[in-house]
């Protein structure tokens, strides 16, 4: 597609100069270092006190491992939040600013198809998101070595899931912001993806875990679940929960893990792929219909 490379290149250049993304990145980067450093200091303080591990209920190595699990679990949450913020920030601006400022008038009068323009914008938005979240994840991975490492694969798996989910959010904001004001687009997306879809997924998960006995409710949410995007979850979340329960001395049971999301299966991943294609198609349709 002629021109989509140029659109992607210069959209990325613009994104790299946007202060809001830089601010999110800096806050995320400082937060991860502070979290890792803080937990490590906590360990050092505990280890330097001879009475800390004297009771014998927990030794220094177990405590260190517990802190690492705690750090990784916080990092997962932090990455998910920052990926969402970055997805919203990119989605709200990548196409909307061209339309709102009037840049689109000059761009669309050039020999570039709307399909190539939409493809270039989507490509730039996805690459931008991956680069920023990827850098935060690299930093988190480096900080994990403070605790001796060993959970790097869990981070990689969860990072893929976080980025995949953020891509869906970003595509929804991109398409909605082509029709309406970008702040309104973010609000609509938040209500749709984070509230409505979130509630449906949670009730579906509880029903799956046997916590909701009513068959009618289960059936309704089974249907609804396959009408909304699925948030991908890596096995790390459940593994982490299991390890934390074990380290605290509790026995892991299905009941205890029922409220922890199960890892996404092939069906969920295929549904994610379909969702991405559908929302990318919606972005193209919105750009194609748009008169400037």
């Amino acid at each position, binding site marked *: 597609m002629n021109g989509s490379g140029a659109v992607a290149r210069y959209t990325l250049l613009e994104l790299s*100069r946007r202060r809001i993304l830089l601010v999110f990145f800096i806050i995320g980067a400082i937060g991860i270092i502070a979290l890792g450093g803080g937990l490590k200091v906590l360990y050092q303080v505990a280890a330097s006190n001879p009475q800390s591990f004297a009771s014998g209920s927990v030794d220094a190595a177990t405590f260190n491992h517990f802190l690492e699990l705690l750090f990784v679990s916080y990092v997962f949450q932090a990455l998910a939040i920052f990926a969402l913020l970055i997805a919203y920030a990119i989605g709200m601006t990548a196409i909307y600013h061209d339309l709102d*400022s009037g840049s689109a*008038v*000059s761009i*669309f009068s050039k020999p570039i198809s709307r399909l190539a323009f939409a493809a270039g914008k989507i490509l730039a938005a996805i690459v931008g998101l991956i680069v920023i979240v990827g850098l935060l994840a690299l930093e988190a991975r480096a900080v994990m070595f403070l605790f001796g490492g060993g959970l790097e694969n869990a981070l990689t798996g969860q990072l893929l899931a976080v980025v995949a989910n953020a891509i869906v959010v970003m595509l929804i904001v991109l398409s909605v912001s082509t029709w309406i004001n970008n702040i309104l687009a973010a609000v609509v997306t938040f209500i749709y993806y984070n509230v409505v879809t979130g509630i449906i997924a949670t009730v579906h998960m509880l029903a799956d875990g046997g916590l909701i006995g009513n068959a009618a409710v289960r059936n309704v949410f089974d249907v609804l679940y396959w009408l909304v995007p699925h948030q991908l979850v890596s096995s790390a979340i459940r593994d982490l929960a299991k390890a934390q329960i074990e380290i605290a001395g509790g026995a892991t049971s299905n009941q205890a893990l029922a409220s922890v999301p199960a890892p996404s299966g092939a069906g969920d991943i295929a549904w994610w792929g379909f969702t991405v294609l559908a929302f990318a198609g919606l972005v193209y349709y919105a750009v194609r219909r748009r008169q*400037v």
Partner: protein
Amino acid sequence: MAGVVSVQNLRKRYRRRDPWAVDGVTFDLQAGQAFGLLGPNGAGKTSVVKMIAGLLRPDTGTVSLFGSDPGNAVARKDLGFSPEDPDFPKFLRASEVLDYFASLLGLDQAERRRRIPETLAFAGLEGERRQIRQYSKGMKQRLGIAQAILGRPKLLILDEPTADLDPMGRRDVRALIERLKASGVAILLNSHLLSEVELVCDTVAILARGRVLKEGAMAEVVPEGSNLEDVFVRLVEANQPQRDHLPSFISDTTP
């Protein structure tokens, strides 16, 4: 002469209940011709040029750009369009905007290296390192004209090209139009500066409320001993409701 633009019975309105913004406009534009599209504010001039540039879809009627539908990207290959109040991606610099647009035009690296500095120099933006968001309206207007000529177009559409320019800028644009016209480029000029239009255009169409009131060669539209401004004011005033020109609190002389 080859037909560059053919507009047939074009109609456009933005909402179903709105009056027609463009109502049955028809004209042709040939290579080497400079065509002035005139009209008061809201006459539909910008809507017409946006339909020619493939930015708006007509409700009825047809537009042909180099024999094709302007919605087709290939038809716009030889089009240069300088919009009214142009704007550009605000975090880019002028040279980056031109490189971006040159890429969209399909110019190769060597051609981009040759054309971009010369185009920037023509626009008086050489050595300008600030990002577009820090530009004045006049600087954006200059860049708007620069990006429109970058691809050596066969049709140049200028929508109010001199509205925000200083006198030197206006002179440069006038010289540019003359030069391009002489080399066979078709020019479509939207402007409120009627003296300028009279100087550079050989054909004009005067629009009001979406309709063409008069169209023809400059010599036909402007009779001997008259000027374009007189003709324009007379025609437009005869075709729109009369207004009190001053509010009563200004025209009232009693304290």
